[in-house]
């Protein structure tokens, strides 16, 4: 067997650009997600009584409520970001349960890409909400000496975000692979169920932590 921890096999090249397996998987997941979302939105707009449109209402409403609870007011852009994060990560994790599919979130490149997107969203949201000076000022509170700690905290939490997701998904996948190699067929089923739960939980946590970070930046100048 081949244990894959950090490596990513290159399937083919488009010109000089290598296309890895993770890229293909995440593209397929993204396209499926967009298709489903467009179908749900179509149903929700035209047939609000359909049960699928009720599912769509539930998803949107729950994310809006979550963001409202965390930030303290309605914020549709943050809600959209959190919802997209959750849906993408959860879809990737569930797709990882399929045989022969390596989850896109089990690659450190993907999780760090998501973490960096969140890391960049934080100052953007803070500046949009409080202005440039208002956002930068909060790094020097309560004491200018604490500014390096703020910066380190932001970097480390981004790192933690990326590595947490990567470690959880990768280790779950690894354990399942080891059990399949050692014990055989159907034995790792309970571990796969746990893996499914952990995957959804990690998606939820990623979305919530992103919301918390962005919410903290938005309400930074309101002390």
């Amino acid at each position, binding site marked *: 067997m081949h*244990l894959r*921890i950090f*490596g990513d096999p290159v399937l083919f090249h488009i010109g000089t650009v290598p296309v890895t397996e993770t890229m293909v998987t995440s593209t397929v997941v993204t396209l499926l997600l967009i298709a489903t979302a467009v179908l749900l939105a179509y149903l929700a707009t035209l047939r609000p009584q359909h049960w699928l449109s009720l599912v769509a209402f539930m998803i949107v409403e729950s994310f809006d409520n979550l963001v409202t*609870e965390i930030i303290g007011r309605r914020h549709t852009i943050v809600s959209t970001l959190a919802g997209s994060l959750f849906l993408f990560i959860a879809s990737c994790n569930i797709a990882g349960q399929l045989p022969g599919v390596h989850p896109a979130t089990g690659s450190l490149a993907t999780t760090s890409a998501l973490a960096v997107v969140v890391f960049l969203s934080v100052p953007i949201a803070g500046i949009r909400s409080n202005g440039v000076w208002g956002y930068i000022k909060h790094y020097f509170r309560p004491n200018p000496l604490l500014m390096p700690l703020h910066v380190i905290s932001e970097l480390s939490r981004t790192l*933690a975000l990326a*590595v*947490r997701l990567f*470690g959880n998904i990768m280790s779950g996948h690894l354990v399942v692979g080891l059990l399949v190699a050692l014990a055989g067929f159907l034995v790792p089923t309970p571990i796969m169920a746990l893996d499914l739960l952990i995957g959804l*939980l990690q998606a939820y946590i990623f979305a919530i932590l992103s919301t918390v970070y962005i919410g903290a930046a938005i309400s930074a100048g309101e002390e």
Partner: protein
Amino acid sequence: MNDQTIIAVVAMAGAGLTMGLGAIGAAIGESRIGAAAMDALARQPDEASSITRTLFVSLAMVESTAIFCLVVALILLFANPFTGAAGG
């Protein structure tokens, strides 16, 4: 016993120690989080949704230290830059 063997032995021992010691702190922390969450739930059942959300977030954040340990152990075992057989 050449250098590669010594490095492999030390890496394996370090990986085991990393995993074991790292799991201790995460286990203690998670148990305390669970106890505190139960206490808070018993005191304020109305705040169940908020408490549950905070509980999961805290559990994930504490568990992330164990996950870091796991990643480090895996790096030591499979992606050790000092061994010739770097995974990958």
